[in-house]
């Protein structure tokens, strides 16, 4: 599975870099994270709950950072596994200073995904992967804003999204992507909802 994209953080490159190295912030912002610890220099271990379609489980992840060139770039080596499968590979992250004190992040992940996660969840894997990435980055940006405004006294504290909020966001992304690519699915979904409502109405009448 390949995921690549860009994201603009509203903050200086050094601040973004700092944020990305802080396990506490990461644990709060990466969706599904149940635990994240620093186990050594540039070594992290975490437990993440991931749901892809019908496949749902906790994955234990080891992340090692390498080729660090602060504050420009680094590579994350990811090795995660759980009862439902595995995902491992490398994520390359590049931070580019942009105008008006913003930072452009370019990321490129190449992951091998296997087990039930890939065998049963395949159809949703890309969409869910992209959705998780988007949410993680948006969460990080919010945390960044909280931290920056924390420099001033009346700072709003950052709160991580709940599991439910996260799941809802994934569902929304999946739906949006399906709708964009295949209107047929949208029509089919609408038909199913109509039939379901009709069935409920009929069964209450009877």
């Amino acid at each position: 599975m390949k995921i690549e994209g860009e994201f603009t953080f509203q903050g200086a490159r050094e601040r973004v870099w700092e944020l990305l190295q802080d396990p506490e912030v990461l644990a709060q912002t990466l969706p599904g994270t149940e635990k994240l610890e620093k186990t050594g220099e540039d070594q992290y271990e975490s437990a993440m709950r991931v749901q892809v379609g019908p496949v749902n489980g906790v994955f234990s992840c080891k992340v090692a950072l390498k080729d660090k060139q602060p504050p420009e770039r680094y590579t994350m080596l990811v090795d995660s596994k759980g009862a439902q499968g595995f995902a491992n590979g490398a994520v390359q992250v590049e931070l580019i200073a942009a105008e008006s004190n913003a930072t452009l992040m370019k990321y490129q992940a190449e992951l091998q995904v296997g087990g039930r996660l890939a065998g049963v969840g395949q159809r949703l894997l890309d969409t869910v992967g992209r959705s998780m990435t988007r949410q993680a980055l948006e969460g990080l940006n919010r945390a960044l804003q909280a931290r920056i405004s924390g420099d001033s006294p009346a700072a709003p504290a950052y709160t991580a999204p709940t599991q439910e909020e996260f799941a809802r966001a994934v569902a929304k992304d999946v739906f949006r992507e399906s709708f964009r690519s295949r209107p047929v699915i949208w029509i089919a979904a609408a038909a199913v909802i109509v039939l379901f409502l009709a069935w409920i109405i009929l069964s209450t009448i009877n």
Partner: protein
Amino acid sequence: MGTTYIGQPVLRNEDERLLTGQALFTDDVHLPGMLHVAFVRGEHAHGRILKVDASAARSRPGVIAVFTAEDLGSYWQPGPLLVPPPPIERLTFHQRTQVPLAKDKLRHYGEAVAAIVAESRYLAEDAIADVIVEVDPLDAVVDMEKALEPGAPLIHEGLSSNLAAHVIQEKGDYHSVFPGADVVIKKRLLYDRGTAAAMENRGVVAQWDAAGQQLTVWDTTQAPIPIRNGLARMLGLSESQVRVVAPFIGGGFGPKIMMFYPEEVLIPWIAMQLKRPVKWIEDRWENFFATTQERGQIHEAEIALTADGHILGVKDVFVHDTGAYDPYGLTVPINSQCTLLGPYNVPNYYSEFKAVFTNKPIVTPYRGAGRQHGVFVMERLLDFAAKELNIDRAEIRRRNYLSPGDFPHNHQIIYQDFAPLVYDSGNYAPALDKAMEMIGYEKFITEEQPRLRAEGKQAGIGIVSYVEGTGIGPYEGARVTVEASGKVCLATGVGTQGQGHFTAFAQVVAEQLGVEVKDVRVVTGDTREFNWGTGTFASRGAVVAGNACHAAARMVRNKILKLAGEILQASEEELILEGGRVYLRNAPQKAITLGDLAARANPLRGAVKPGSEPGLEATAYFGPERGCTASGVHALILEVDPLTMMVEIQRYVVVHDCGRVINPMILEGQIQGGVAQGIGNAFYEQLVFAPNGQLLNASFMDYLLPTASEVPNIENAHIETPSPLNPLGVKGAGEAGAIPTGALFAQAIENALREYDLEICEIPLSPNRLFDLLGERVKQNIEISISHE
């Protein structure tokens, strides 16, 4: 000869039990103290196993034991080679059979690594995550052509390449055809993998009775007797200590004739180790890779013809994907090789194949068992030839049919039963005529198609022929007993997976013994009831077991008439056996019932004379010298939606010749079911593997089976050309429906989209694939027209 029951659409004896939920399936076996097994399965298609650590799983509450390959000790052995390669000259075959639990290497996705035994399946499944399997992933071999390239990763280190087998069979001299050939057509044709998707997954329950020293195994196998024999050997028991029961089975389709699956070998062993009953039921996810599959082949084929469409010769070189192991030998590719010749007179034939190991689930026969590929290649070649020579598609087939005077016809190559491929009988043109008449072939082409096209409808028609080698040996047996109740008991060794054996076999016996079909109680698939046999496969149940039933019933009939003659003081010619009694032709009031005869044949006093046997019972065996060849024609009208590329079947006609028909209703059911699987194979189903060997659509959410809305009611007709190779004159019918469907779809879709001049050289198709093929073709057509300007 007039018949009472044979040939009649007798309602099925087994349906009441099946439809009211009374039939026993393997998962219905519940035993006190029974334990449940879940398997830890490898997540890499190819990798070296560095470590398997089950200590955490062993200490989980509710887990009784965990077994890894190391724990099996000397019981860890690769499975037997089920079918050795046929005696073909210059044949290469490398035997690599599956192992009970992966030890050093993982060779396909989902290979079992450890068995967890727990108080419940839930607890066993929970413990899967506790088992640490460390794997060093290796590059996977997924593409069957790349498997043979130098430098391809080796799946079996002991071999110098991934070649599993290399076979050449020749008839005449293909190269001699060129001087006379007016046209030579070469094509590359592909067939990809699917799964049988039986409604019931596999399952095994085993119980070791330590006091009685008896092992009982309930197994969803198509071959209970060979499983009994093999388990006894592996476990160091006498065959009489092992009873294998194949109860009702929700569909076999071939993957359940694969024997000594890892789970099948392990569950009985675990039951003996733990001295408790043990159950494992495959779940649907496991079924997608732990059960065998079929159909990956790539053919480079060539046909040479005269200008008037007569075949001079065919050359076919293909690669066959055998998956990670090859326990079933060469049955599938040999079937492809032999079935390609079809109902046609092919004077010169060169066929060469290489079977290759890949990091994919094991390939063994699945309904059709390689015959699809052969039929697809031949029928496609004929279609392309018909277009090239401007001959009607039905006509080019007719011109090449073997004629009734050509039988027996020797194709001079070796078939899967090790005997020369000799067609016993056949009459092909009438089936073609009948199919054309039923579907209205001429009228559709001249009237309906132009009208539909004027309305903007992309409607097309297809018509294809095929043969199916069926009813191969070595033998089956049956025992018929008339009981004192006047009812009949029939036992045979073959297992049953929904074929209607409880009715068809009963009809054969009732015909001889003059009893009602429902009064024949049939027992199948229980080794305690019948000791000898091979199994249900290769469309052979009705032919081989059916004729054994017939022979045993004939013997009992003779005993009945002999005894009745003595009692009624009449010669056997004067006696009539019908309605459950024997009476005198000229004095019907002088009669004796079968029940009374059975009692008299098994007296409590007096003497059974030396040289005779008590009871009205006989056991007989039937083994044909070679298989018999069934045939048929399928015709189809379909419509392609030009926007969605979805296909809607308007009519589907099958004219089938499987010799004498025992029960046309059951036969039509077999054909309907076969066609349904064929339609799935042609347009909906495909197993998709990632380049690392990961199976990507291992659920019914993503693997699309056709449903009632995609499968039409088949219109059937039967031609009966009896087989001279068995007394009943029957031929097999189990696989026929599924065999020509891919070829038929390809032809009909091309016909529906004929303005695009599309050439379909692959199966399965899908709306997406069809859209892509059409896009490529449109692009090519534009390029051609530009270059012409």
